[in-house]
């Protein structure tokens, strides 16, 4: 179908000028519509940095695999027969056919349907029909499936990178690890995904959802005004407190909660086992965060967003705590595929899990009453950014730039911005500064 919409623009971007603007709290709209910037993002950011690909619990047994996308490169996340997790590019080395067309499964081998080249579940080329035809010049070990240069996980969250020279995952996450611990180490048994990830494609540049998740707490009472009235958001006592925590490498965390001293952990409805284990597994400061945050979200530049929150499945029902993960898969300058997971602690009851999944679905899944509203504003901003006049405008990301304090008493790492108004965009500035650094540094 035709779209009665303007097309992406093709101006040559001036990265230095963009840098200056970001420092001044201004963001050129064209970062959301310029085709050249999108191509730079793929080349200098996405294929050079760590990308989230899935959760350990999705491939529990040797031979298990799930199909994923790393910046629209189709890959397979596989647990090999050696129990090692790899990320294999889903492209046959012979003539490029897609090796595996299934979304998930368990297999010993991947056999290409074009000429029968056969790879085992570690990616090794183990069968070439007619190999004699190569007169001994084809070394199978040089024609195995291309693997991501590194695959590492942090408490079950699996990341991969195509860049062999990248820092380690731990270094890449840096200060963010302290916060990820809060989400992933509450239970001795760890997290599990509920159901397969949701996948859908939305008409927006990938950075609009990413920058909202990194720190845009300000949109909440406006975009979600109707959803907030439904009675599924837990009500707590205590003076409201909101923070933007800017972390190394463009990552960021936001917290919506209460000031210290008014514990809200109870809203998550954890079973005793989790309440006990989190006391053992988390530092006191981390426990304090859980006790202050009714919701806590963030973005790990570029492609992983998360939100950890307490939410009820029905109006007036008790709330449960779950972790939602989001993967941004950039399809084109104005199309992004979302992958979305719901995770809970393994040692919660079946009833807790069902409640959590429904709370997730009805709130933040593709049919969720919060999610629906976000897509509209993201696609709106992505569309105006193509207008022949609007694409030359500067957006304003200076909120809190001249009125926020660093909360030095906060127990966690990073720059913890907060202010009385609870309106902040600190993390957005840090996100865009770092994003641009990748584009420039990659030159």
């Amino acid at each position, binding site marked *: 179908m035709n779209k009665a919409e303007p097309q992406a623009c093709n101006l040559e971007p001036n990265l230095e000028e963009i840098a200056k603007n970001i420092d001044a709290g201004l963001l050129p709209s064209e970062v959301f519509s310029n085709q050249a910037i999108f191509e730079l993002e793929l080349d200098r950011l996405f294929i050079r940095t760590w990308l989230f690909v899935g959760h350990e619990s999705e491939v529990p047994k040797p031979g298990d695999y799930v199909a994923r996308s790393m910046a629209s490169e189709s890959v397979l996340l596989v647990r090999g027969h050696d129990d090692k997790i790899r990320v294999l590019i889903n492209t046959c080395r012979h003539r490029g056919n897609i090796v595996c067309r299934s979304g998930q499964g368990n297999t010993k081998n991947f056999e290409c349907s074009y000429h029968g080249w056969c790879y085992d579940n570690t990616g090794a080329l183990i069968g070439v029909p007619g190999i004699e035809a190569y007169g001994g010049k084809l070394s199978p070990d040089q024609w195995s499936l291309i693997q991501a240069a590194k695959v590492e996980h942090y408490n079950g969250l699996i990341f991969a990178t195509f860049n062999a020279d990248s820092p380690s995952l731990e270094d890449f996450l840096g200060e963010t690890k302290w916060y990820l611990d809060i989400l992933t180490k509450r239970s001795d048994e760890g997290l599990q995904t509920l159901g397969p990830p949701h996948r859908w494609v939305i008409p927006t540049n990938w950075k609009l959802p990413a920058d909202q998740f990194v720190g845009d707490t300000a949109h909440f009472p406006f975009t979600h005004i109707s959803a907030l009235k439904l009675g599924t958001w837990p009500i707590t006592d205590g003076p409201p407190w909101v923070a933007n925590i800017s972390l190394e490498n463009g990552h960021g965390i936001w917290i919506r909660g209460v000031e210290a001293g008014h514990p809200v952990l109870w809203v998550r409805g954890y079973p005793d086992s989790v309440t006990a284990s989190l006391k053992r597994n988390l530092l006191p400061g981390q426990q304090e965060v859980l006790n202050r945050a009714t919701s806590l979200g963030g973005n790990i530049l570029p492609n992983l967003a998360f939100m950890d929150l307490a939410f009820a499945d029905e109006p007036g029902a008790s709330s449960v705590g779950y972790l939602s993960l989001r993967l941004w898969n950039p399809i084109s300058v104005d199309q992004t595929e979302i992958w979305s997971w719901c995770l809970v602690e393994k040692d919660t009851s079946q009833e807790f899990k069902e409640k959590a999944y429904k709370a997730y679905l009805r709130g933040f899944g593709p*049919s969720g009453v919060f999610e629906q509203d976000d897509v509209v504003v993201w696609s709106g901003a992505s569309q105006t950014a193509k207008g022949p006049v609007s694409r030359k405008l500067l957006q304003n990301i200076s909120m809190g730039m001249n009125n926020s304090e660093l909360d030095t008493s906060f127990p966690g790492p990073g720059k913890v911005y907060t202010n009385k108004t609870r309106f902040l965009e600190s993390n957005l500035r840090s996100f865009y500064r770092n994003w641009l650094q990748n584009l420039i540094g990659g030159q």
Partner: protein
Amino acid sequence: MAHTVNDHTHRQVVEFLMHEAELLDDRGFEEWLEQLTEDVVYQVPIRDTGKKNGDSEILRDGAWLSENWKSLDMRIRRLRMPGVVAEDPPSRTRHFVSNIRIVAGGNPDTVEVKSNLLVYRYRGESVHYDLFSGERRDIIRRVNGAWKLARRDLWLDQAVLASQDISIIL
């Protein structure tokens, strides 16, 4: 191919489905809710792309929607609120219900009925539209003389949603 229900019931069931679809397209949501039993179960499962031939999907423990009366009521109340960003201006929907198959009538007050559903959804002022295709597997129950929807399983035919959201009632 035996007639599992008599002509009278058959026509009532068909008319029930037509009426219910009309209420959705006419945005008569509250009246639509009245067509559901209080213990209604409304599910839209996820169908994943499996490898095995013969298995066109693996239904795992996931869903696009998993609703009951209260959650549908919640969604509908929201659709009426000012500031419901996702549906202001509202989508226009058209539910094309065809291939109605009444599959069981053991209990005279309970009917199982399958139908094919194509939903056309248009929003705003572009030339873009969404299509949702799938099969409905409904259970309809007679409550105080009136037919009500007691259960709906909608098997959507997509694995990756070709729509930016599901902000409408399918």
